[in-house]
């Protein structure tokens, strides 16, 4: 669902249009569940977080002064619910990722520089979500250190802006940019390793 459709649902709920209720719940429940599942790693915790978040959302719906901000507003509540839940459970520790770890090696042969990475050119955009690739991506994202994972989820999966992400996570915009880049590089590297090892099958058909 596009953000405009979400904003429309939020406006209708504010007007007291109960027909928007189930659409809103279904849509955001799935989003929050997926976010918290990746953050907590436990199905039960993720379901609890989704319910706790929606409860808080409806209790305080009249505090949403700008319906245009419904997505970041819901995610801010979800993020806090997730933090509360995770205090009680085990999660991947915070760790700093260094840019140097992701710089690919370059071979200089006959004056030509060649990167030591997989051939991504044969991978059309619409083929990216094949199941094997999705599994690799699942793993790559879930293995991100806990201070990088939410940034990538907010910016690239939920397509929130840098400013919105910074506000949700209590970070500066510069920190969001830095962490996003490193998280992307880490995920890119995992996908690259997969493509170099055996993912050729993904690009050789069609």
């Amino acid at each position, binding site marked *: 669902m596009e953000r405009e459709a979400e904003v429309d649902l939020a406006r209708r709920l504010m007007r007291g249009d109960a027909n928007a209720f189930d659409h809103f719940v279904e849509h955001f429940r799935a989003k929050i569940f997926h976010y918290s599942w990746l953050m907590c790693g436990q199905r039960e915790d993720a379901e609890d977080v989704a319910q706790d978040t929606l409860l808080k959302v409806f209790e305080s719906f009249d505090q949403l002064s700008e319906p245009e901000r419904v997505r970041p507003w819901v995610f801010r509540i979800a993020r806090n619910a997730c933090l509360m839940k995770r205090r009680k459970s085990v999660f991947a520790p915070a760790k700093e990722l260094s840019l140097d770890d992701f710089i690919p090696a370059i071979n200089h042969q006959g004056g030509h520089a060649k*990167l030591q990475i997989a051939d991504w050119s044969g991978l059309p955009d619409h083929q*990216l979500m094949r199941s094997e690739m999705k599994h690799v991506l699942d793993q790559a994202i879930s293995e991100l250190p806990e201070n990088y994972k939410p940034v990538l989820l907010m910016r690239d999966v939920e397509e929130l802006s840098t400013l919105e992400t910074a506000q949700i996570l209590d970070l500066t915009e510069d920190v969001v940019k830095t962490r996003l880049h490193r998280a992307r590089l880490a995920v890119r590297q995992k996908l690259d390793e997969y493509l170099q090892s055996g993912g050729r099958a993904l690009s050789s058909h069609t």
Partner: protein
Amino acid sequence: MELHERTEKCKEVFSLLSEYLNMELPPDACQEMEAHIAGCPPCVEFAESLRKTVELCRQYRPSELLEPLGKNAREQLLEAYQKMLGGRKALALGSVKTD
């Protein structure tokens, strides 16, 4: 020497690539970057792999499926919503009375 310089510039491009893909770079930095990338196949190749990574993340939905919402859980949410609406109406009525 030329190769060495190129590598230093490549590192700079490498560190700014996400901001470039997000169109968050200032115009002059962006132009400088494009000028370098235009003549550097390794940077083109790397930028393309990162662009596809981002595209993949945008399409990504975790494989874990969510169970349907239980009846009690839905009731709980609906109650919270109606209570919020009721509170707002009461507030509005209150303000009419005092005017």
